C-alpha cells in the first residue's frame, strides 16, 4: 500500500480492493515454476524425452526418482516453513519471529547432533522425532524467556530469540568440533535440495500434514493472536492452543531440518508479505502463506540449480539473499508508518 491507499476520514463505503489478481498470479507462478523445476537439471529431461520413453536418457526414471521428489519437497518445505512462521507470530504476537529467530532451529539441530553421537544407527524417523522434541523444548524455552519482554518491544523479542539461538548454536558447534562432526553440522545448517531423491523426502509429508492441522485450527490461532485476555474471554483454552501451536512449529522445523536443512528468513518474510496483502486472519492467510512460501522456495531452488550449471549452490544462500532483501524492505516500510 502506498500513502495514497491509506484511508482518509471519508465516510463513504470504501470496500477493500479484492486482491484476487494476486491470488491468480501466485497460482500461475506455482504451476509454471513447478513444471520448470521438473525439467531443470544437469541431465536433459524434457517433456518430449519423457513421452518418447527414451531408454538412453532414462528421462522417465529420472523424473520419478529425482525431479518429482525434489519438486514436491520444495513445495512442502516452502509451504510448511511459511506456516511455522505464521503460527509462531500468532503465539508470540510479534511479526519478527520464526523458528530461525527464536532458537527453535538451533535446538532442533542440537537434537540432530545428539542422535548422531548417542544413536548413530537410528532411523531417520527417530532422528526427526528427537529433533522435534528438542525443537519443542526450544519453543518452550523461548516462550518462557519472552514472557519477561513487554509485547510492545517489537524488536527486542526476536533479538532475545537470536541470542538464545546463538548460545545453543555455540554449544552445538563446540561439541560438533570436539567430536569431529562439524561436517555433518554444516550439512544441516545449509539448506539444500541437491540430495533429495525418492525415499529421502517423504518425511516432509508430515510437515505438510501440520499445515492441514494448522488450517483446521486456524480460527483458534487467530484468537490466540489477539492475546490471552481476548482468548479467555472467548472461552478458549489458551494454554492448549499454544501447546498445539508449539507442536506444529517443532514438527515442521524438524522435518525440514532432517530432509533439506536450515532455510533462513522464509518463515519470517512470507507471513509479513501476506499480512500486508490480506491481513492476519489465519484462516484466510494460510493458503496465501503456503502458496507464496512454495513459490519463493521453488524460484530460489531453480536459481540455485542454474546459476553455476552443472554445479549447484546451496539453496539457503539464495533464500538468504532474497529473504534478507525482502526483510529489509519490510522493516524500512514498516518504519515509515507512523505507529
Amino acid at each position, binding site marked *: 500500500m502506498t500513502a495514497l491507499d491509506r484511508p482518509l476520514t471519508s465516510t463513504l463505503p470504501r470496500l477493500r480492493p479484492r486482491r484476487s489478481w494476486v491470488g491468480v498470479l501466485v497460482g500461475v507462478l506455482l504451476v509454471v515454476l513447478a513444471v520448470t523445476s521438473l525439467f531443470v537439471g544437469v541431465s536433459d529431461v524434457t517433456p518430449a524425452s519423457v513421452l518418447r520413453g527414451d531408454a538412453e536418457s532414462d528421462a522417465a526414471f529420472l523424473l520419478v526418482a529425482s525431479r518429482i521428489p525434489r519438486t514436491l519437497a520444495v513445495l512442502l518445505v516452502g509451504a510448511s516453513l511459511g506456516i511455522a512462521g505464521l503460527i509462531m507470530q500468532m503465539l508470540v504476537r510479534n511479526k519478527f519471529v520464526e523458528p530461525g529467530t527464536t532458537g527453535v532451529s538451533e535446538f532442533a539441530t542440537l537434537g540432530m547432533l545428539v542422535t548422531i553421537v548417542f544413536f548413530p544407527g537410528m532411523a531417520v524417523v527417530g532422528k526427526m522425532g528427537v529433533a522435534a522434541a528438542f525443537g519443542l523444548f526450544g519453543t518452550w524455552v523461548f516462550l518462557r524467556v519472552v514472557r519477561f519482554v513487554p509485547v510492545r518491544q517489537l524488536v527486542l523479542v526476536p533479538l532475545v530469540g537470536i541470542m538464545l539461538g546463538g548460545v545453543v548454536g555455540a554449544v552445538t558447534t563446540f561439541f560438533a568440533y570436539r567430536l569431529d562432526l562439524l561436517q555433518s553440522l554444516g550439512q544441516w545448517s545449509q539448506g539444500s535440495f541437491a540430495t533429495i531423491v525418492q525415499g529421502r523426502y517423504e518425511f516432509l509429508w508430515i510437515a505438510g500434514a501440520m499445515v492441514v492441522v494448522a488450517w483446521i485450527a486456524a*480460527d483458534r490461532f*487467530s*484468537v490466540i493472536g*489477539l492475546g490471552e*485476555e481476548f482468548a479467555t*474471554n472467548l*472461552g478458549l483454552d489458551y494454554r492448549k492452543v499454544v501447546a498445539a501451536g508449539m507442536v506444529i512449529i517443532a514438527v515442521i522445523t524438524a522435518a525440514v531440518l532432517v530432509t533439506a536443512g536450515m532455510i533462513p528468513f522464509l518463515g519470517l518474510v512470507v507471513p509479513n508479505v501476506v499480512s500486508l496483502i490480506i491481513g492476519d486472519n489465519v*484462516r484466510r492467510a494460510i493458503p496465501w502463506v503456503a502458496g507464496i512460501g512454495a513459490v519463493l522456495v521453488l524460484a530460489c531452488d531453480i536459481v540455485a540449480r542454474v546459476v553455476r550449471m552443472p554445479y549447484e549452490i546451496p539453496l539457503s544462500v539464495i533464500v538468504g539473499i532474497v529473504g534478507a532483501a525482502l526483510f529489509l524492505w519490510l522493516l524500512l516500510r514498516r518504519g515509515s508508518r507512523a505507529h
Partner: protein
Amino acid sequence: MIALENVTKRYGSSTVVDDVSIAFGAEGVTALIGPNGAGKSTLFGLVGRLLKPDAGRVSVDGQDVATAPSAALATTLAVLRQDNSVAARLTVHDLVEFGRFPHSRGRLTVADREHIERAIDYLDLQDYRNRFLDELSGGQRQRAFIAMVLAQDTKYVLLDEPLNNLDLRHMTEIMRLIRRMADELGKRIVIVLHDINVAATYADRIVAMRDGGVVADAPAREIMRPEVLGAVYDTPVDVREIDGKPVALYYG
C-alpha cells in the same frame, strides 16, 4: 447475577482486592469508580477468570467461575479489558466474527452471521467493516471492540475503561450506545469509569472502590454527594445541581 463472595486477591504482600462481597446484574448499567489502584481492573480480572482469587468465590448465574467450563461462561459473560493493543492486522469484520467464537467454534451458521451483521449495524460500522483495525481512529476502534462483545451475545458485559483516550464526542457516543444496549437489548453492563459525571449521567448504580474494598454502593444520585466523593478520591469534590442533574466539580 454476577456474585462475588468474600473475594480476596493478593500480589505478594499487597492486597489488591480485600474481602469483597458484591453482586452485579440487577441494574442495566453499573459504573465502577474509584482512584487508580483501587482494585477495579483486578476485580474484572477475577470475574473474567483471568485471575484466580486467593480466597472467596466468584459465580455467574450460579456457575462457579473457577470450575465452570470456560466455553460455557463465554456465552453468558463478556469482558473487554483496558488494553486492547491488538498487534494482528484484522478487519473490523474479522474481529466481530471472532465474537461469535464461543457459539460457533469457528464454523459460522446463518444465525451467527445475523448476529455479526446486527452488531456491525448497531455500532454503525458498515462503512468500516473491511478496514483494518490499525487504520481506524480511536473511537472507531473502540466501537469495533464493543461490536465484537455485542456479537458474543452475552447477558453480562464488563467494560474496563472503554472511554480511555476518547474525545468528548466519541465518549458521549459510546456511553449513549452502552445505555441503549442496556435499555433495548436487556444487557447487564458493568463499566469502569474515571469521569464521575459520566458515571452519574449514564449509570443506574455506582459502585465506588478504594484500597481494594467497596466503600460506596448506591443509585447514582446518592453517590453524587461531596462527602461521599471526597472520601472515595481523597480530594475535595464539590457537587452542584445544574438543570436538575448533579455535577461534580473537582478542578482548582
